[in-house]
């Protein structure tokens, strides 16, 4: 396992009391696999991975549990040691390429900066490496792109530059936080293709965060579904998509338009909205919106251990 997260909790102190954004999340990432993390906004998918990266800078955040990267405990690791991993072994791609790059430096400068933060090489060599990286992420004219500023590039090109930067030190683990959400559909396909190819070439493990079930079904080896700060279902892609167990996952699947056959006049939507983290229901947090809830849902269903599991009392009834 390259990454083992156990009982991760992230709590924010607020004026209205503590808010538990992540509540006991545990998962593993194996070397070279692509793990898809799905959920609505506010489900905690981004926060949990920011916690892994040590990028939660809010002084009101309290992080608990254990995050192990190749055996090294990251929770409570000194900032200096964490910095050595960050960008070198664990890299991250962010959602909005329009704002993810510093506007006043060239693409080449920003990539070379990361390389030189982790490797003792000359500025010249770092620039050459940056050019190779840009070529690798399919920049049409990598040498010229080195001296381009972020505002001179399109969104898709910026995201490629961000990816090139993330890959600059050959990270073993790449965390991608909705890297295609801000992009056009045609550009999206190119970026997804790129992520998959890079995994194949470098063998990096990828954690891919998205709210797009379509993207996950295309890319991920394994999938985990998050709701209100907890994992509600996990499994291999084929299992999860072939036979979703949790009513929330089933509802999410229902909102994907079918590719063949008659299109429904309106796509089914999940009634209600995600619960406020300040006022989570006592029992199952999906219960208020769940079409199949019953008395038992007053209690909180645990996520069983194992590779394939769902946190629901009626799993057996749905299993086919």
């Amino acid at each position: 396992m390259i990454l083992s997260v156990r009982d991760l909790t992230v709590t924010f102190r607020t004026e209205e009391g503590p808010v538990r954004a992540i509540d006991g999340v545990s998962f593993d990432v194996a070397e070279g696999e692509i793990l898809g993390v799905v959920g609505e906004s506010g489900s905690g998918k981004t926060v949990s991975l920011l916690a892994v990266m040590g990028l939660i800078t809010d002084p009101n955040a309290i992080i608990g549990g254990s995050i192990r990267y190749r055996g090294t405990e990251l929770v409570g690791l000194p900032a200096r040691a964490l910095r050595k991993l960050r960008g070198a072994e664990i890299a991250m791609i962010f959602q909005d390429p329009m704002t993810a790059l510093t506007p006043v430096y060239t693409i080449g400068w920003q990539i070379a900066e990361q390389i030189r933060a982790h490797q003792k090489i000359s500025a010249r060599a770092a620039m050459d490496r940056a050019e190779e990286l840009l070529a690798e992420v399919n920049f049409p004219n990598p040498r010229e792109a080195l001296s381009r500023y972020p505002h001179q590039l399109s969104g898709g090109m910026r995201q490629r530059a961000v990816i090139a930067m993330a890959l600059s030190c050959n990270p073993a683990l790449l965390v991608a936080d909705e890297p295609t959400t801000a992009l056009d559909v045609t550009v999206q396909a190119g970026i997804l293709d790129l992520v998959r190819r890079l995994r194949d070439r470098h063998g990096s493990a990828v954690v891919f965060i998205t709210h797009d079930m379509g993207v996950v079904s295309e890319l991920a080896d394994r999938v985990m579904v998050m709701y209100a700060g907890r994992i509600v279902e996990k499994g291999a892609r084929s299992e999860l998509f072939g036979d979703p167990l949790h009513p929330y996952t089933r509802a999410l699947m229902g909102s994907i338009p079918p590719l063949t056959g008659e299109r429904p006049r309106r796509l089914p939507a999940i009634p209600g909205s995600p619960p406020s983290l300040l006022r989570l229901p006592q029992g199952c947090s999906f219960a208020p919106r769940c079409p199949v809830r019953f008395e038992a849902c007053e209690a909180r269903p645990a996520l069983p251990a194992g590779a394939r599991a769902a946190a629901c009392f009626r799993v057996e009834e749905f299993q086919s």
Partner: protein
Amino acid sequence: MIYAILRRLGQMLFVMFGISVLVFLIFFATPGADPAARIAGRNASPEVLEAVRHSFGFDRPLPVQYVLMMKKIFITGDLTSFVNRGWKVVPAVLDAIPVTLSLVTGAAILWVVLSIFIGLVAAAWRDTWIDRGLMALGLLGISMPVYWLGEVMNLLSQSRYHDTWLFSWVPPLGYKALSEDPKGWFLTLVIPWVTLAILYIGIYGRVLRAALIEAMQEDYIRTARAKGLSESRILLRHALRTSLIAFVTLFGLDFGALVGGSALLTEVVFGLQGIGKLTYDALQSLDLPMIMATVMYASMFVVIANAIVDMVYILLDPRVKTA
């Protein structure tokens, strides 16, 4: 790049032309007032009035008057103050420029360096006692009026404690030319520099701290952290560079205004015959030619300072180039 600078210079000339026309019209075409009488001063004899009228072309149409006026200021330089009995205006302004420039430039160097330092320290140790202490000091600096602070400085360094080791180096008030007496120039100006700079250190330190803290919330700062950069590098290389844009804007406006005469209070308190003092005296005696010349000069500096700021923008922020 060169084209952008040339275009900027062209705009600058155009703005200065506009200002000169406006100032000219306010002083010389105000209905119901006789500019000749005002230039000649109170109780002028009819002969003087006639001479003024002829010299400034008040018997000819307005555009001719404007051209004559500009010729007197910029080409022949023989604009004469009648209130002050034949005092040549242009040399007087030229004499005052180095005084004001010395005062303001020195203070500007002080306030830029110190406020960047304070802003960075306060932002890096945000919400700690260091930050609060520095911001309280800044507020104190902003709250002290420069004429009061100047007088207190004078009281301490010129009389009360002048003979102690602390202030015995302070020369008497007044200005010494840099070319004649560099050491004297420096020593006489140290206290005026500090006095003038304190207000701006407070303002700029606070502005920079706010800009830095805002910049530190940006997505690209998170990217920089994800890259594994150190906090000091993130602050200095990524946040400071973008935060300096607001800082430079403010600096251009303040520097231009100060060189243009806003340093009046400091000049008066420390007995420096600068542009501010010159303008103030001219206004007291309604010396129209002098006012005209100093206003032209001041507007020129504000416009030049702004043009320089625009060019610094291009260096700081590559996005400006294409705009």
